[in-house]
C-alpha cells in the first residue's frame, strides 16, 4: 500500500536550488535511506514531506491526502524527528511526550497506554521524570524518537536519528527501526552508509538537490565489485 507519494518537488532559497525535481514513493514495510553529502537537500526534502516547508512546485500526497490542501489530516499520519531532535528542554520527558500526544489528538486512556509503551520500548522509564535539559545526547535523541512514535504513525520521517549516538545506542536505534518497520513506511536521512546497509530496503542518494540513485538496497549490495561506499563517492563527487 502506498503511504507517501511526492512528485517533482522543487525548492529554492534565493538563487540557491536546494531541491530540484525530487520524487519519492514510500510503501508499507519500506525503509528508505536518504543519503547525501552535507547540503545535498536531504533536510529540505524532509521538511517539505512533513509540511514544515512548502514546495515551490510539485505535489505531496500522504495516504492520498494532498498535504498542501489538507495539512492537518496529512500531518496527523506522520511522525517526525527533526534534525538535532529538538524538544522543550524545561519539561520532563513524560510531560513532553504527554504534550505531543495530546497535540496529536490522543485521548487520555490511549495516551497513557502509548506513553507506557514508549517509555518501555525506547528505554526511557528511568528518566521519565527528569528534565530534558539534564539528559545526555543519547537520551535526548530517544525522547525525539518517542515523540515521533507516540501516536503510532503510519509514516515515520527521521532526520539523522543516530547522529551523535555511541555505537551501542546506534545499534539499539537500528534494532528499534527494524522492529517497527513491518507495518510502517520509514524515511531516514543519514551520512552513515553502514546504517543504510543495515536497515534500509531502498537507497536514495541525492546531491545538489537532485536524485542520483534510487535503488533497492539489496540490488546495490549484489554488486560485488562496488560497495555502497564507493558508489556514493563516485556519484556524489
Amino acid at each position, binding site marked *: 500500500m502506498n503511504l507517501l507519494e511526492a512528485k517533482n518537488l522543487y525548492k529554492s532559497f534565493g538563487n540557491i536550488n536546494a531541491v530540484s525535481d525530487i520524487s519519492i514513493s514510500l510503501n508499507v514495510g519500506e525503509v528508505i535511506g536518504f543519503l547525501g553529502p552535507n547540503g545535498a537537500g536531504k533536510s529540505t526534502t524532509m*521538511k517539505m514531506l*512533513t*509540511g*514544515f*516547508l512548502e514546495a515551490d512546485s510539485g505535489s505531496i500526497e500522504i495516504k492520498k491526502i494532498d498535504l498542501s490542501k489538507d*495539512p*492537518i*489530516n496529512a*500531518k*496527523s499520519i*506522520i511522525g*517526525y524527528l*527533526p*534534525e*538535532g531532535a*529538538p*524538544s*522543550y*528542554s*524545561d*519539561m520532563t520527558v513524560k510531560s513532553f511526550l504527554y*504534550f*505531543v500526544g*495530546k*497535540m*496529536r*489528538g490522543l485521548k487520555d486512556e490511549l495516551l497513557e497506554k502509548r506513553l507506557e509503551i514508549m517509555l518501555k520500548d525506547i528505554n526511557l522509564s528511568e528518566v521519565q521524570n527528569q528534565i530534558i535539559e539534564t539528559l545526555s545526547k543519547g537520551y535526548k535523541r530517544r525522547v525525539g524518537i518517542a*515523540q515521533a512514535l507516540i501516536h503510532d504513525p503510519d509514516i515515520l520521517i527521521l532526520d539523522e536519528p543516530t547522529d551523535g549516538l555511541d555505537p551501542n545506542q546506534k545499534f539499539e536505534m537500528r534494532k528499534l527501526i527494524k522492529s517497527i518497520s513491518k507495518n510502517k513506511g520509514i524515511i531516514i536521512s543519514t551520512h552513515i552508509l553502514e546504517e543504510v546497509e543495515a536497515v534500509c530496503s531502498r537507497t536514495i542518494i541525492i546531491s545538489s538537490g537532485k536524485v542520483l540513485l534510487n535503488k533497492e538496497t539489496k540490488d546495490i549490495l549484489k554488486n560485488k565489485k562496488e560497495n555502497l561506499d564507493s558508489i556514493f563517492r563516485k556519484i556524489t563527487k
Partner: protein
Amino acid sequence: MKLYIEKLMIIFNREFTGYFRTPLASIFLLVFLALSTGMTFFMGQFFQRGQADLNSFFVWHPWLFLILMPAIGMRLWAEERKSGTIELLMTLPVTNSQLVLGKFLASWFFTLLAIIMTIPIWITVNYLGEPDNGVIFISYLGSWLMAGCFLSLTSCLSMLTKNQVIAFIVSTISCFIMVMAGFGLVLASVRSWAPLWFTEAIQSFSFLSHFKRIQYGVLDLTTFIFFISMIMICISINIFLVQLKKAD
C-alpha cells in the same frame, strides 16, 4: 470548533505552566508587585494625596508594562526559533492561528494573574475611604487590555528574531513609541507644524491617551475597540509572520 479550542488550550497550558517551570514567573510577579506598589506609595504619594482612589496606582501601569510586557513576551517565538522546536511544533496537526493565539493568551492570562495579585491595594483603599469601585474595576480592565496590546506587539516582534535580548529591546522601543505618541510633549512638537488631523491621528494611536480615559472611569466603545483591534491586528500579523519566517 471544539477541536480548535482543545488544541489551543493544550498550547495555552504548556505556555502558561512554562512560566512556572523556571524562576521567571516568581521574579516577574515579585518585580511587578514591588514596582507597582512602591511607585504608588512613594512616587504617587498615595497617602499624601488624601483621596480614596487608585489613580496613583494605575498612572504607572503604561510605564511599567513598557518594560515588563516585553520581558514576558520576548521568549514566545524567539526561543522556539532558536531551539528548533518551531519545526516540531509546526509539523504537528495544528494551525498557525492556534499556536499564535494559544501562546498570546497564555502570556496575557499570566499578566492577569499579576494584576489580580495587586487586589490588596484595592482592598486597602476601600478600608481607608469610599472609592468609586466602578472606576477602579474599569481601570483594572483597561490596564489588562493595554497589557494585551503590549504583549501582542511583543509576540509579533519576537517572531522576527532568534535572539530574546534583541526581541526585548525592539519590543520595548516599539512599545515606548506607542506610549509616547500620546505624551503632551510629543503632541506639542507635532502640533506646531502638522495639521490638526495628523496630531489627532497620532494621539488616537497612543496607548497613553486611551488609558488616561479609562483611568477616569470612561471605558467607551472607541477605547475598547481600539485596544481589541490593536491586539487583533498584531495577532494577525503574527500569524502571517509565523508562516513567513518559520524556516529562516
